[in-house]
């Protein structure tokens, strides 16, 4: 019989460390349950925004050694300026220059709506070799009303005091009105100082609209 009212005597479950208390599948008692390994930390919504920044310790953002992996998810990123690229950088401590040294790779799979241009290739114009510029995550994104970009970026162990900080992104976007662009970028911040923040912006103009979510992965 399902529980009609919460009763002290219903708590007949064996405690398990680090588990949650949940109703069982019959809703007539309790069981222990695990929470997910991917936790939403912060959602930022662009509205003609010059930048979107995630700073550890500010506005409920966690970007420290709480999680070994952090994932940013991009939903319907729409640039104000046609063919502007979404870019990112990181910084350490309380610094706000966002100019860490990056070495990175970038390749694309692309195809045009008219059936031409299907190809896979490395793109030398989007990588960096010990550069301190913002790193391209995409090719240029179209800004027609229905064009946009989606995807994800993971940063591994940003708070390490020993290792460089690796990152990997995979995104899908519209380019130049009628191209499908699938972009793969990876690299590392060449620093052994803990990163405390990440900033996203377009290579030109504002982020007209879109959402960036930050998750911690256990």
């Amino acid at each position, binding site marked *: 019989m399902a529980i009609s*009212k919460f009763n002290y005597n219903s708590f007949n479950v064996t405690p398990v460390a680090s588990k949650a208390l949940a109703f069982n599948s019959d809703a007539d008692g309790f069981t222990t349950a695990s929470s997910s390994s991917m936790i939403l930390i912060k959602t930022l919504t662009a509205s003609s925004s010059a930048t979107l920044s995630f700073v550890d310790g500010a506005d409920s953002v966690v970007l420290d050694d709480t999680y070994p992996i952090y994932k940013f998810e991009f*939903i319907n990123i729409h640039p104000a300026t046609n063919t502007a690229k979404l870019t990112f950088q990181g910084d350490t401590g309380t610094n706000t220059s966002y100019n860490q040294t990056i070495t990175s790779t970038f390749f694309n799979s692309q195809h045009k709506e008219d059936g031409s241009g299907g190809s*896979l290739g490395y793109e030398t114009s989007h990588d960096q070799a010990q550069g301190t510029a913002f790193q391209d995550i995409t090719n240029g994104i179209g800004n027609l009303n229905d064009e946009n970009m989606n995807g994800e970026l993971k940063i591994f162990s940003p708070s390490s005091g020993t290792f460089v900080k690796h990152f990997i992104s995979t995104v899908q976007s519209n380019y130049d009105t009628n191209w499908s662009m699938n972009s793969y970028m990876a690299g590392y911040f060449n620093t052994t100082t803990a990163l405390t923040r990440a900033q996203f912006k377009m290579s030109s103009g504002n982020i007209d609209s879109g959402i960036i979510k930050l998750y911690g992965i256990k």
Partner: protein
Amino acid sequence: MALSKADVNNINITPTASKAIRWNSAADGFEAGALGGSMVLLSTQTASGSANLSFTSGIDSTYDSYVFKFINIHPSETASFMFNLSIDSGSNYNVTKTTTHFRAYHLESGSASALGYETGVDLAQSTAFQDLTGDSIGTANDSGVSGSLHLFSPSSTTFVKHFMSNLSLLKTDNEIKNTFVAGYGNTTSAVDAIQFKMDNGNIDSGVIKMYGIT
């Protein structure tokens, strides 16, 4: 007033199957709700000689993106694994798509390996099913395909619907193939259903799970 100490008299909530007990938004009582995770299992479908597996409910604006996990998909005939989208709750699976497709492969014998774009299985403004494997999956007992497909913002009525997939399959000629298919459903109508099937025969066995990402 927020609770300073949990008291049994504050736990006056209605039990809900498979939900957890959590503090409410005012922290002055409790409620039933999902556990703290951001990847929520919405549906699991298991193939058994199935012509197709279709998800016709649960794809809406509740989540910003959806992930489909393919686990040991095994064909009844030598066949490719494919999918399409629907904007009419599954009555028709024929959304116009432009896509890219590249793959890496390596034979068990070690005799060949390569990375490259596949022009034969990408789509250009086509309503056809999108081939996710690009080649036939073997029917040997130990053959199959596993991987995932990420669909973004399917309920948007403003933007086209982007997706990305990555699968690993064992081909008929004892070859590992790692495929990367991405593209967009070129529609500003809300996508509310998705269907998976083989291009030949049935899905003999396998599991497809649909997750919502909060």
